[in-house]
């Protein structure tokens, strides 16, 4: 099947999909026993058939990863590993447009987001970590006498919000540190992971260093719970994350988790309201909430509440929804039918609980899964829409009076992934940024990411960091966290 995307791509880039994909195990695609269809959430068109990974498949993938770890990858000098990572990075850059188109097709994210943000970042992650592979001795872990070691075979299970970017976050540091990988992409967005598998093969990566097992939640459980892996890295929902944490504790496995959590944007009375409105709208809608760090909770100092809500509403009205492959699209499709249903249900609960709903004018196509950009005002912390962790294109707005109050209200959450702070006062921004219990705080900006910067949450938003020097710890055998007698 071929998809053309002239609007999004310079020249005549075409994405060619195979009709059916096997599992990428031991360096080649192997057929499985049953398949499922992955569809475009914008059109409900079937994109490809993808294989359901079974217990036997995961066993084979883990065995391949173990063999590659013991015989090849862990023995290889860092500079050799770096070469492979660089090859992967270059191939990703070469195929960036195709990968972006594929990502938009499979996930519903607008092409501007996948092409201009996700792909450059994912590629940068491989370049960045290629540089670490032969410099781990200087990262401050271990010592000359006892150089730090990789963990072994890593099981990685990722979500659907930024599929290829999350894959890069997981695989690049794992390989740089000398681990081998079994990765399970989200059920609804497997295609870029499979395209990445082709890149691994084309880069000549030794067989078994990266294995991709597709499937549903069960396949994810099989990977995360496999006794043959040394470490689990998971991105997804807090509920599943907690179960994985329990099983990892039981089996004595290392663990990193990235579980999201509604993030707060705090707009102070002296803020540049236009910039804040722009940042909020970009933060929550441009990825249609398809990001674990979407800024869905907005706290506005009461004197500027109406002004900010007006500015946000104005920008929301101007957002264009539609074909994810159209370059002028701001808002693509919701990732899946079940996600759309969850969003719809939660939005209804918001109305039922007394919050005031406003949705941008919106004419959804006949097919596909859509949800209009929506804002709730007069939201209180007790409302489900303010409490529940859900990646969705919905803003919940409430007002605050004093900085201390907003700090307390923001910190009352059991999560703590990220926050935005909008104010022109340096001392106030430092105070807010200092006291918010969140892993990432963006001052007068929102949602920026970089491979050199640690990302990850406080409290129940996660465990460990990804990116930067801190992120290497997740893939090195350092004492103190994880299994018994490590």
């Amino acid at each position, binding site marked *: 099947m071929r998809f053309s995307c002239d609007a999004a791509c310079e020249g005549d880039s075409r994405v060619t999909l195979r009709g059916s994909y096997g599992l990428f195990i031991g360096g080649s695609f192997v057929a499985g026993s049953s398949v499922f269809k992955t569809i475009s959430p914008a059109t409900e068109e079937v994109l490809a058939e993808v294989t359901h990974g079974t217990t036997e498949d995961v066993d084979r993938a883990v065995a391949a990863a173990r063999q590659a770890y013991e015989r090849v990858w862990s023995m290889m000098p860092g500079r050799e590993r770096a070469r492979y990572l660089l090859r992967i990075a270059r191939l990703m850059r070469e195929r960036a447009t195709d990968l972006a188109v594929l990502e938009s097709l499979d996930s519903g994210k607008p092409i501007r987001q996948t092409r201009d943000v996700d792909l450059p970042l994912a590629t*940068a992650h491989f370049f960045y970590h290629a540089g670490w592979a032969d410099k781990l001795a200087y990262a401050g872990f271990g010592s000359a006498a006892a150089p730090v070691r990789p963990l072994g075979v890593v099981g990685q299970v990722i979500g659907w919000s930024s599929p290829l970017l999350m894959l890069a976050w997981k695989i690049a540091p794992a390989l740089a540190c000398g681990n081998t990988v079994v990765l399970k992409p989200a059920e609804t967005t497997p295609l870029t992971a499979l395209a990445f598998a082709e890149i691994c093969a084309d880069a000549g990566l030794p067989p078994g260093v990266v294995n991709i097992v597709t499937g549903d939640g069960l396949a994810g459980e099989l990977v995360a719970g496999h006794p043959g892996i040394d470490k689990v890295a998971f991105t997804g929902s807090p509920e599943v*994350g*907690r179960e994985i*944490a*329990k099983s*990892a*504790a*039981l089996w*004595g496995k290392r663990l990193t*988790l990235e*579980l999201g959590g509604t993030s707060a944007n705090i707009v102070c009375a002296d803020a540049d309201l236009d910039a804040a409105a722009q940042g909020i709208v970009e933060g929550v809608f441009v990825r249609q909430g398809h990001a674990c760090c979407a800024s869905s909770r907005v706290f506005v100092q009461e004197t500027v509440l109406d002004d900010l809500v007006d500015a946000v509403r104005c920008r929301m009205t101007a957002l264009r929804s539609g074909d994810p492959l159209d370059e002028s699209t701001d808002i693509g499709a919701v990732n899946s039918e079940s996600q759309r249903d969850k969003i719809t249900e939660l939005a209804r609960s918001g109305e039922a609980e007394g919050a005031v709903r406003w949705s941008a004018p919106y004419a959804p196509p006949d097919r596909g899964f859509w949800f209009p950009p929506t804002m709730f005002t007069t939201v209180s912390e007790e409302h489900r829409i303010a409490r529940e962790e859900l990646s969705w294109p919905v803003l919940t707005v409430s007002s605050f009076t004093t900085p201390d109050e907003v700090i307390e209200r923001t910190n009352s959450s*059991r999560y703590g992934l990220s926050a935005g702070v909008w104010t022109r006062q340096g001392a106030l*921004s430092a105070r807010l*940024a200092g*006291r918010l219990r*969140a*892993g*990432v*705080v*963006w*001052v*007068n*900006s929102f949602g*920026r990411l*970089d491979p*050199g*910067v*640690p*990302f*990850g949450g*406080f*409290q*129940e938003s*996660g*465990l460990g*960091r990804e990116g*930067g*020097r*801190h992120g290497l710890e997740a893939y090195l055998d*350092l*004492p*103190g*966290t*994880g*299994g*018994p*007698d*490590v």
Partner: protein
Amino acid sequence: MSPSSPSSPSSPSSPSSPSSPADVPPRAPRRARAAPRTIHRLYIGGVFPRAASGRTFDVHGADGTFLASAALAAGRDARDAVVAARAAFAEWSRAAGYDRGQALYRVAEVMERHRAQFASQVRRATGGSPDAAYAEVDAAVDRWTWYAGWADKITQVRGTVNPVAGPFGTVSLPEPVGVTAVLAPQDSALLGLVSVLAPAIVSGNTAVLVASERYPLLAVALAEALASAELPPGVVNVLTGEVAEISPWLAAHQDVNAIDLAGAPGALADDLAVAAAGNLKRVVRFANPDWGVEPGPERMFATLETKTIWHPLNS
């Protein structure tokens, strides 16, 4: 230990207890009188309450002689201790590293001042030689001092400035995780206890300490030293009793952010680690080291979060 300590209603080493040769002077006139039967208490929020149940248990020395009774804490006491630790967190975590360091140095000083009494207690609890007891106390004092010096250095060692491809400045800073439950190692009377407690609090966490079952009186003595050093109330809370009874409450508590399993035997530690996953507590689990060796910073780092702050440049 310090009979003059105003906040200590009970004294762990009664002055009439047999002294070791090393701490002989000044000898009290030997006279026959019944030593008061000491019943120690818990240490929660800066005061010394009885266990909520009122229960106590007998503590014996290495030679089997009765030493004192200690409070037998249970779930209610654990919850009270967590509340006290949470209440103390805001101020302690925001205190300047320098000031936290000063507080830890004061603890070292108070222990040093009561060196002989600590040594005599260690000796009675462990049955070792006076020299070994003094060596353990000295090592514990040195351990406080070592960690105290970290208080204003963790951020420099652990933080980073991150270059990014864009007009932003970013820094990543360590922050304390919050309330930590610390299970003191069972195999060490004093040094192990200090070696797990100091790294938890030096970075700004507050702690609920579960004393060693074998050596609870050293934890009580330490609590009195902490009170005497005027460590802010609630920064450290000490529970004595059965680890298997108390620790599951802490591992499952939704307002505890981390748990150090040093004092939990293997099977219990596994259970606690699973319970701790319920709210994604940071689980600190090292193979227990030789407590005498300089520890390295890992235990401190295990109860830190990393916060990254992005700031636009040129805007």
